[in-house]
């Protein structure tokens, strides 16, 4: 829209090509330059960020190479650093979070988009957006004092009794561990799933619903079998967005995950995540290899979230393009 610059002469004679100086005097060129510098600095900063992460993780990359991602051992004394426990913990907690947040989130989004009248839906969405504004440290705080005792006294023993035959629910119930971290993360990412899914669902054209209803489906059937699949890509996008958020969460996780680099099949076990270990050990990493191993972990996390965010945007783009198209892609 703004690619053609319309430089209308203010008072003087119309010249075919206005000289740089006169445009400068006009202030437009300065403005253009200034704003360009600001925009360019954004690119510069981002490039610098990736560059620094890459440069400052050179030592472990050369020393460990690819085995960095496959080693379980994290031993600062022996200078053996392996990323596996942290990658495991990050993925497990994110998986638990999504398993809980996705059904709840999509369900709530369906309610807000399909059932609730706009008078109710908008204020509710507003409240849910506020939930997204709560800082991570407060979630961690509440998680530590409310969720952890709840898990330890009620939920984990109950799970153990009923589903204890699964290796997922074995072992001592600390209250702190993968499961609790996953639950806290789930609460944190639900608002993202709800708000994006709701918008996507709202943008599904009316005739889809009406066609389904006209063919005799129930309200639920039209929603679940027609509307939601139509919005499928956008909803997937919201899930990727939520996943990216869950992977990068630091404070809430470190306060309830137990901070031990453990790989265990049990969800009750304490563990570690990439973000949590960086937060805990960065200021005390004695020795360059140690520090740079932490930075390499940061690079890994950054790449993961970058890929997921990219996929999410792609999905949303596909949805909006499809918005008025027909059928399934």
């Amino acid at each position, binding site marked *: 829209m703004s690619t053609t610059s319309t430089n209308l002469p203010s008072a003087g004679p119309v010249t075919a090509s206005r000289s740089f100086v006169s445009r400068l005097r006009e202030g437009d060129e300065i403005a253009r330059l200034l704003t360009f510098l600001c925009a360019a600095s954004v690119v510069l900063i981002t490039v610098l960020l990736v560059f620094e992460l890459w440069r400052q993780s050179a030592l472990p990359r050369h020393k460990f190479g690819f085995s960095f991602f496959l080693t379980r051992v994290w031993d600062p004394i022996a200078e053996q650093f392996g990323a596996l426990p942290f990658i495991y913990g990050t993925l497990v907690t994110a998986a638990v979070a999504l398993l809980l947040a996705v059904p709840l989130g999509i369900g709530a989004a369906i309610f807000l988009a399909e059932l609730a009248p706009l008078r109710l839906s908008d204020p509710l969405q507003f409240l849910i957006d506020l939930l997204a504004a709560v800082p991570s440290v407060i979630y961690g705080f509440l998680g*530590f004092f409310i969720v952890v005792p709840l898990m330890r006294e009620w939920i984990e023993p109950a799970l153990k009794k009923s589903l204890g035959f699964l290796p997922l629910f074995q072992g001592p119930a600390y*209250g702190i561990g993968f499961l609790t971290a996953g639950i806290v993360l789930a609460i944190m990412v639900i608002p993202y799933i709800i708000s994006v899914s709701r918008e996507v669902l709202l943008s599904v054209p009316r005739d889809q619903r009406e066609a389904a209803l006209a063919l005799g489906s129930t309200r639920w059937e039209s929603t679940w079998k027609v509307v939601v699949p139509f919005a499928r890509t956008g909803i997937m996008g919201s899930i990727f967005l939520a996943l990216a958020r869950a992977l990068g969460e630091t404070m809430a996780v470190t306060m309830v995950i137990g901070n031990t680099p453990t790989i265990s099949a049990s969800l009750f076990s304490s563990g570690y995540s990439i973000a949590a270990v960086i937060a*805990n050990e960065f200021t005390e990493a004695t020795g360059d290899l140690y520090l740079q191993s932490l930075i390499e972990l940061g690079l890994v996390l950054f790449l993961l979230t970058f890929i997921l965010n990219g996929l999410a945007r792609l999905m949303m783009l596909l949805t909006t393009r499809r918005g008025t198209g027909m059928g399934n892609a």
Partner: protein
Amino acid sequence: MKRLAGMVLLVLAFGGMLLAEKAIPLTGAGATFPYPIYSKWFDEFHKKNGNVEVNYQSLGSGAGIRQVTEGTVDFGASDGPMNDDQLKAYQAKHGFPILHFPTVLGADVPTYNIPGVSAELNFTPDALAGIFLGHISKWNDPAIANVNKGVNLPANDIVVVHRSDGSGTTYIWTDYLSKVSSDWKDKVGKGTSVNWPVGLGGKGNENVAGLIKQTPNSIGYVELIYAIQTKMPYGKVKNAAGDFIKADLASVSAAAAGAIKTMPDDFRVSITNAPGKTVYPISSFTWLLVPSKFSDAGKRDALKTFIQWMLADGQNYAESLAYAKLPQEVIAKEVKALSKIQ
């Protein structure tokens, strides 16, 4: 509304600048082990010398060593003395050595939270090693029960709590365990950050104490004052002479007594598992890590004044917080060593 916002912003900006008085701000970071006494000291010292503000951040001994080596803080603090490699690294980076100054004596105590048990438990070295190695997993295990006859220990799983950050408290604990258990020495070893076989990780003495307080059936190691301040029971440990000793001023001082004669000039010494009937075996000095050269004379003098005060008046605050005073001989030696700071 805009004007109001602008005015608020201006006021805040000025406020920030106004606070740039002629104060000498010193930043230190490190051990959580002596944090209660340090924060008391810096507060009292500030009351006497209003222009010196010592901002001490208890990030853990590992962070103390790292940050003082990086030069991002003016001094560090650690209960695990810097090893030779770390000293060399400091010298290589800065061109001058770093000095250790002992400040107080403290103790690592095994503190626990067992529902229904408020008694002081006895722990043998083997029991402690076994618990922290994960070999002993229940509270009513014979290794614990046999020395605690009369206490009704439940058959619950032990939840081990240790440090997740680089810790001098860990160094003291693992130093002790390495001396009393060859199993521990082989499998884990000693250091500020070890590969723990079992347990939950807490950040700092504070978080370990907090975790133990919140988690039933847990046991962990904290500096004595943390157990006292949080009113948690802590156990007696069997010392090298075979007696079960509780950590207190007398038993900790006794541990240091033997080391006075052999105190090296750089003050780095380990007093865990010291011989003697009344000795508490998991005692330790804790040190300030002070660069031997300061480019800022104001900071240097402020820190030197602080250390002099700490060695004299400051020692009087130690006992009320359950830290033992430094032996007189050590103090005298330190006063002499102050001249090394230039």
